[in-house]
């Protein structure tokens, strides 16, 4: 910063408005939630009963729906992150073999600009039972596999996987675009130099593309991770967390407790737990990537 010959005051003047806005919109609500999480409160009455860490204790020890929700949230994250290498592979292939790669990538990107509500309704129709026009069941029926037909979203066993698939489908194009741009930005002369040295095809990918793509790859991973922890709207539209909590993730559990069960304090505590989980994993991802970066480069 010192290289910039700008008085500290000027910097402060430019930074302050945003900083204040940020603090008031982000930190203050978090602090309020921390405060509220120590009460038993219905969100309406003026009577708040201070219960200390009781809410946290109940979440961690007594809530039968919390740990399964954590598991589903993390599964969501894992699935979203596993998608990224596939996106990278596609990006490399498109970059190498497709003439107008941009067009193809734009087409893949289309689901991202659709509203989640539309996506949810669309996929609900795909998953519907046969008599309601469900496409998957229609195909199964056509193939004579009637025994595998199901009301997919109403099956406690499959509903959650159905939701993962929708998310993967929607965000495939998003991560493909990021990876594709990353791959395109690697200067062509590096490859040319490598070719002279005898590195082509997969060898070039291993020693040039992969090391240089790591920062972009990391962005995708972090975005996918954050996105899946926030997963809420799609689940709300498609299953509402049901049947009977089978598709509850932390955010829907928090919503239902706060607004449906009027347990405001408990909901706030859940929110704080979610924040902590996010923090822990973001730090974890960063550490891992620092190692990977050091290793490949």
């Amino acid at each position, binding site marked *: 910063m010192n290289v910039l010959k700008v008085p500290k005051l000027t910097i402060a003047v430019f930074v302050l408005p945003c900083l204040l806005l940020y603090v008031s919109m982000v930190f203050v609500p978090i602090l309020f939630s921390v405060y509220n999480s120590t009460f038993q409160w*219905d969100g309406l009455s003026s009577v708040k009963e201070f219960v200390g860490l009781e809410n946290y204790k109940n979440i961690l020890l007594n809530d039968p729906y919390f740990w399964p929700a954590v598991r589903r949230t993390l599964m969501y994250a894992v699935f979203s992150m596993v998608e990224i290498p596939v996106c990278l592979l596609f990006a490399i292939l498109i970059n190498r073999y497709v003439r107008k790669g941009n067009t193809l990538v734009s087409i893949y990107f289309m689901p991202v600009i659709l509203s989640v509500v539309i996506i949810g309704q669309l996929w609900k129709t795909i998953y519907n039972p046969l008599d*309601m026009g469900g496409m998957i069941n229609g195909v199964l029926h056509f193939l004579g596999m009637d025994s595998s037909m199901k009301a997919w979203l109403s099956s406690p066993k499959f509903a959650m996987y159905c939701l993962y698939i929708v998310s993967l489908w929607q965000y495939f194009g998003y991560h493909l675009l990021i990876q594709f741009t990353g791959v395109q930005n690697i200067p062509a002369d590096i490859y040319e130099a490598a070719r002279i040295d005898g590195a082509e095809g997969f060898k070039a990918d291993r020693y040039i593309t992969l090391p240089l793509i790591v920062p972009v790859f990391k962005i995708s991973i972090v975005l996918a991770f954050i996105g899946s*922890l926030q997963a809420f709207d799609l689940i709300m539209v498609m*299953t509402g967390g*049901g049947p*009977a909590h089978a598709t509850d993730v932390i955010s829907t559990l928090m919503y239902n407790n706060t607004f449906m069960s009027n347990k*405001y304090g408990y909901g706030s505590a859940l929110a704080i737990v*979610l*924040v902590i989980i996010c923090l822990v994993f973001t730090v974890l991802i*960063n550490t891992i990537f620092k190692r990977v970066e050091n290793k490949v480069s």
Partner: protein
Amino acid sequence: MENQVKKNHAIKKTVSVLTIGALAVGLAACGSSNDNNGGNSGGTNTAANTGSSTNAGGAATDSGKKVTITFQNIYPDATSPANKLLKELVAQYESEHPNIKIELDSLNTDQQKLKLKTQAGNKEIPDITIVNPAAQMKPYVDAKLLAPLNDMLDQNGLKDTFQKGLLDYYSFDGNTYALPDGNNIEVVYYNKDLFTQAGISDVPKTFDELIADVKALKAKGITPIAIGEKDTWTGSFLFMNILLRTNGGPGFLQDVLDGKKDFNDPAFTEAVDAFQELVQAGAFPEGATSIDANAGGNIFKTGKAAMFIIGSWETGNIDASSVAGKVGAFTFPTVNGKGDLNQFMLAPGSGFAISANSKHLQETKDFLNFFMTEFPKKKFELKDAVGVGQVVEGDFKAAGYSDLAINILDLFKNVSGGDLAFDNTMNPAVAQAHLSSIQNLFVQKVDSKQVAKEHQDAFAANK
């Protein structure tokens, strides 16, 4: 350069961490930030209001002052009779009282519930809003957010237009806090054509007959009972009707609340078993738990399902659908020989309530008084008067009401008692546990003792 990149990374890291935090907490925090301030200003407002209402006469003569009343409501559908009624009455009142402007905030039911909760957190509820009866509105009353309406009910006999006992659901400690837009009962609508197709000659009077009919319909490839169980209240409403029968009469939940019974009671497990029998017989559409309430109703209204077990408020909608004229209604059958056919699940309607902190309390009361006085007449005109909670003058048949409407009105005449929906009786936390427990029955077979235990645990944990 290297440093710059690192710094950027560090910033990015912080930003991403904070962003997640913000998004995660944003939802739960949005209602709370103003609480302390809101509480204080709410207090001063109330003080100001008591002042202004004591010299209301003075304020009323001071009529040059423009007053805007916000009217939050749950009638957003411009094609529905309820929405027409709302607009016509508001227009009429505004033309008679040029200094009053009524601003409509029309939302669908779930949005309104959520918006009101958020507004209530800030003590900023609209002048007129919608609350649901009994246990659902109690938190608002306890938080002193609603104004008592006794004076306005007594002032011109408005109170006597309501059916006897109906206002009790909206009254606490002798004060009435809301005026209902209806009073309905749960009935079984059935499609006569589909019944004939399945060779069913008479409506079922017992649960065993109902199961037999379900199987007969199913065998013909007809969905026996329409339901949209993504909105969990629908299944609960049906389940409660079974419980009303197995308990031999109303009051099971009240007895639980009073500590005289608990959910492990045989009446409760018997009801769960009966309900599961329906599910096992294939009574409900496949994938019911991912169908929302409206779509569930449409299965019946498009002639794809034979029965629809729901509140009588659907009468007008069914008459406006493609199955109009083919539909009849009967009361829910007895279960294992228990229960009384003249007892119904009662559904006192959503109630209009006035904010205790309203800046124009007197004007708002005057408007609501006008609105509710005209309400039954207008409803009757719009052919939507089945299930109105007030005395309706006029001959339904002569006015051209459908056979189904007359059929329902006849059922009303026999009502000798009943129960309220689960979420109108128990607090929201217990109700949520119940709703998801019942939803679970749609997707897997559960031991009824386990269901009872889930209920009892939730009840004990959220007293």
